[in-house]
């Protein structure tokens, strides 16, 4: 039986954490060891944009210790991710290089949406329980220090996700300056979070109720652990929050057996989740007690096919993009047609473009969001689409991936700007730019094929023969317009792939 040992490192804003896992086909994922060290990288970065020398040294030592622990466990593979504190650092590359020299650990910086997606995957790693919980209407509330992310599920699929600057440490910082009685804390926190939560409800829920809430956080988990359950119903949570207001958070924490000195943060988390549950009309709360590291190992195990996927995450990303498109009044029918043709072109030219599964997903997203900018301006479609995509959280995408999608959509409507011509302020590397070019070339062709918006190309076959890409459509469809359009759009496709697209009609 092959057992793989995997290390997951989370370089967080307030803590560095390492988890060692065993992964095997028969037993799935098993946590073997974990260690966390409090190092407040966030307060340095958020205040000055840089991490202090002291913290750089301290974190370097901890990472070197992590390396030793991983070596001792004979870890075969590891992932180390930096989150918001590293994202917001102006000298990130220098610091990461220094840490790598010191510890041999390479740290990748992930975007908020990637981070949240991994958190989401960490819950999915709970398997059947997760699927059972999201079958009903469900929301994941991912509570961080600086912000919270609320993701809504509808019939198993992620339907919307929204980030709000209501993180627990941020809230704590805000209320710690207010002179108030213990009994007032709840109402003041509710006032602080109320406006944004209510806007979220109006935008995404309306009259709809969300029955189940899943919370991913560092705080409420301790209440669930103390109560020796991962599930708390709405009334129970309400009771705990009310009694903390009456008796003081410290006393209730003590009574529950929470010895952690962060009970104030636990209390704030409790108030916020309680408020969200009430506003969403939720009945049941699940606190699975997972962390980013659980998401990392799940992703690794899934990507390496050690464990079967427990959920269709790509479907979630697409579903999220579809909902974004809906918000900007895109035509779902046309988007589906474009996506289908785009996938057909992508698959047919696979040997030529050499792109993988992930790029195919980006193409599908580009097709889905191809004209979202129309909502703002018909004449400045390219830039408006680009800006909408760049300002919208699409869970599961890295910053670079979002840039790729935004640029593919932009260059679908405007002249392609070559890598050498582009503004150097962009942080897209040459390789990613090539991906933009390839996907743009495909989307342009696809857009040309459905120029009439009549979905004439719903049933097509695409093959590559020599230097031609043959697109055959079913008989009896008038493709005069498309034939004319494609000759104009083929130029860039030919430039990128060296292939000339040719449309022909199949014989009846």
């Amino acid at each position, binding site marked *: 039986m092959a057992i793989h040992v995997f290390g997951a490192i989370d370089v967080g804003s307030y803590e560095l954490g390492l988890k060692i896992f065993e992964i*095997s086909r028969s037993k799935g994922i098993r946590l073997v060891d974990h*260690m966390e060290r409090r190092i407040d990288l966030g307060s340095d970065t958020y205040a000055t944009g840089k991490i202090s020398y002291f913290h750089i040294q301290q974190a370097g030592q901890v990472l070197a210790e992590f390396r030793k*622990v991983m070596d001792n466990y004979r870890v075969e593979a590891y992932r180390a991710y930096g989150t918001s504190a590293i994202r917001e650092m102006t000298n990130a590359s220098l610091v990461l290089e220094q840490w790598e020299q010191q510890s041999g650990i390479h740290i990748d910086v992930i975007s908020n949406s990637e981070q949240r997606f991994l958190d989401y995957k960490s819950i999915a790693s709970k398997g059947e329980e997760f699927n059972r919980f999201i079958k009903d209407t469900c929301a994941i509330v991912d509570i961080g220090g600086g912000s919270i992310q609320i993701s809504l599920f509808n019939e198993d699929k992620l339907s919307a996700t929204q980030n709000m600057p209501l993180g627990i440490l941020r809230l704590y910082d805000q209320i710690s300056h207010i002179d108030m009685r213990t009994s007032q804390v709840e109402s003041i926190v509710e006032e602080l979070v109320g406006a944004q939560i209510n806007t979220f409800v109006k935008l995404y829920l309306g009259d709809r109720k969300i029955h189940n809430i899943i919370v991913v956080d560092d705080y409420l988990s301790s209440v669930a652990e103390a109560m020796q359950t991962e599930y708390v119903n709405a009334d129970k949570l309400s009771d705990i929050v009310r009694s903390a207001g009456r008796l003081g958070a410290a006393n209730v924490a003590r009574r529950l057996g*929470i010895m952690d000195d962060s009970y104030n943060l636990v209390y704030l988390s409790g108030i916020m989740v309680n408020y969200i549950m009430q506003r969403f009309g939720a009945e049941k709360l699940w606190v699975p007690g997972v962390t980013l590291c659980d998401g990392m190992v799940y992703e690794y195990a899934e990507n390496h096919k050690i464990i079967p996927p427990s959920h269709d995450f790509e479907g979630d990303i697409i579903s999220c993009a579809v909902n974004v498109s809906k918000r900007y009044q895109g035509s779902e029918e046309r988007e589906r047609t474009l996506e289908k043709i785009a996938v057909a072109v992508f698959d047919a030219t696979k040997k030529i473009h050499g792109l993988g599964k992930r790029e195919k997903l980006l193409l599908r997203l580009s097709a889905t969001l191809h004209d979202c900018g129309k909502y703002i301006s018909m004449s400045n479609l390219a830039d408006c689409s680009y800006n909408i995509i760049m300002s919208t959280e699409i869970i599961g995408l890295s910053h670079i991936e979002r840039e790729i999608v935004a640029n593919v959509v932009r260059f679908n409507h405007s002249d392609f700007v070559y890598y050498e011509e582009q503004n150097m302020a962009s942080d897209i590397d040459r390789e990613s730019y090539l991906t933009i070019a390839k996907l743009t070339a495909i989307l342009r062709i696809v857009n040309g094929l459905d120029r009439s918006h009549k979905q004439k190309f719903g049933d097509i076959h695409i093959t590559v023969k020599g230097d031609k890409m043959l697109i055959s459509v079913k008989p009896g469809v008038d493709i005069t317009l498309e034939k004319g359009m494609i000759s104009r759009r083929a130029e860039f496709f030919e430039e990128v792939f060296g292939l000339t697209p040719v449309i022909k009609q199949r014989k009846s």
Partner: protein
Amino acid sequence: MADREIDYSNPAYYYNRELSWLQFDRRCLNEARSKENPVMERLNFLSITASNLDEFFMVRVASLQDMSKGGYTKRDIAGMTADEQLDAILAEAHAFVGSQYSTYNHQILPALKAEGITMVDDYRELRADEKAFLDEFFETEVYPVITPMAVDSSRPFPLILNKSLNLGALLKRKENAGPGILNRTKKSKKTLKSEKENLEFATVQVPSVLPRVIRLPLEEHPELVNGHVPVRVILLETVIREHMDQLFQSYDIVCAYPFRIMRSADMDIDEDEAEDLLKEIEKSLKQRRHGNAIRLEVEAGIDTRLLDILVEELQLNKDEIFMIDGPLDLTFLSKVRKLSGFDDLHEHRYPAPQEVPELPKGCDIFAQIRKGDIFLHHPYESFQPVVDFISRAADDPDVLAIKQTLYRVSGNSPIVAALARAADHGKQVTVLVELKARFDEENNIVWARMLEKAGAHVIYGLVGLKTHSKITLIVRREEDGIRRYVHLATGNYNDITARLYTDVGLMTCKEQFGEDATAVFNMLSGYSEPRSWNKLLLAPLWLKERFKFLIGRETQHALNGEPARIKAKMNSLCDPDIIEALYKASGAGVKIDLIVRGICCLRVGIPGISDNIVVRSIVGNFLEHSRIFWFANGGRPEIYAGSADWMPRNLDRRVEIVFPLEDPAVKEKAEHILDVELMDTMQASILQPDGTYEKVDRRGKEKINSQMLLGEEAVRTAQAAEEARRQTRNFVPEVPPTHDEVQA
């Protein structure tokens, strides 16, 4: 009685902890006086009372004196200020020392003599051949190693080492010897009588490198005494005193008397500020040599002129001076106990440590643990499996890591050697060496350095907390993944004391224990503590609350009319919160049986408060050291064992681990220990309402010596296991011998 009517902070409900400590010494002294014990064991008990009293002064009296000097007026739970406590304990200590020497002079010496051992304390009693032997001995062995120290203007009063035995002398310059070099030009604040008489002071430390007990040459054709070849012994200080004139040849020895001082052993270390704790402790140990003198022992009848000098220089109060009617420092008796030829006077009734039934010699220890939890009960069962556990892990290629806490280890510890070997083999070895283990600081610094040199990751624990827990974690890579083997215990990883102290241990590879053990070491290494623990109860954050909950739950059961009982065994009980919880439980009708070997601040027999509580103390052949806690829990008993006593220092200022015993067979064994000890009618004493102890009233009761009974049971169990193995014809592949076995 309803809670609100009782003020549990009433000092009348508590007994002072220092006086209770001295009560324990009294119980040890009773064993020295008991004719039921073989004479050599009586010597041992008397020696123990002496070392206990030394420790008491160095630790407790020193601390109270600091409080007194600092003007600390807060009262203890028994309502006494530091000054009141000092007065009471000094009075008790003087009385106790009187009892010690009365026992020595009137019981032990005659008993020894009756068996052929004579302690010679007067040189005039020596035969000529004995004198010649001692002259030779002094000249060749003693003289080269002693350093007489004189006091004059250029040589101030020398540093008298803590606990060292010295001879103080007054000297007078011989008339024809010219001008003296020992002129005491540095005058005292008050003119001492010795100064008026031009007497000079000198001191000689009795060298600790030489044996204090000197066996004199045998008489030719001696007559046997009670079947023994008679032996005469003399103490080293008597020999030096007799030869003092050889040390100060130009002087007449006016008088010479032995004296001994005790210094405060409190160390003041600012751990927050200490950059290197190890170096800081080394520094403090050096400073400790200069701690304040807190007790002076002198031979009764000492020349008052000599005494005045000592008192003046050491700045002692009158009640800190102990006039001793016999040889100072009775710990020498443990050496007399080792005299050859008197083996029959030793304790032989107690069986030797037996093989643990589940862990026969040569077995695959990891495979055995995989079969189920293994409970160990030392010294009735051998400690060797614990040594083997670590030793095998050190040599096992599948073992990835060994982690262990060390508090007190033996002089030539096979456990430390195995850890060093494991590190040498490239395994991850993490050892927490508690540098602040009182009186073992120097030892532990040596171990820490040795292990570091071998490549182990040595940690010194958490700032401000002593790590007293006893835990070992072995991480092993097996076919079905990583498995963690854990050993948890009530006693130290010390193969020597494991033969003398009663302790229990648990070996398990249950996942939840493994997870907790991993978290313990991560926490001790400076990583975050987990928010909750699966199984282990840890001090200082969780343990007290959990005990209070467990006791409170019994109270509730009693109030609900369900079965409610507590049986617990520990070394000391003085935590006010725990005592209050016990009082409440007793008040609610919970029957509470406590076996508390040492200090107990709980008062029994207070109507409505503690009349359901019985406290007994067992002082026997082995030092009772295990901590076991049993709660009836309404018919679903829970039982725990661990390193913590019910004392504030254990519950609030130390890292302690208490662990549940869950396996039904293990629970049964642990509860059986409590039940047997509760039946003891031979070695047990019962706490009385006035804080004194009385032996169990044996009238109409069977004679039960719990330690003997447990030892005999261990023999029977081991024999039965051996017999069962003999009858099983399964082929068991032999496990290669451990490194230690090969070495042996």
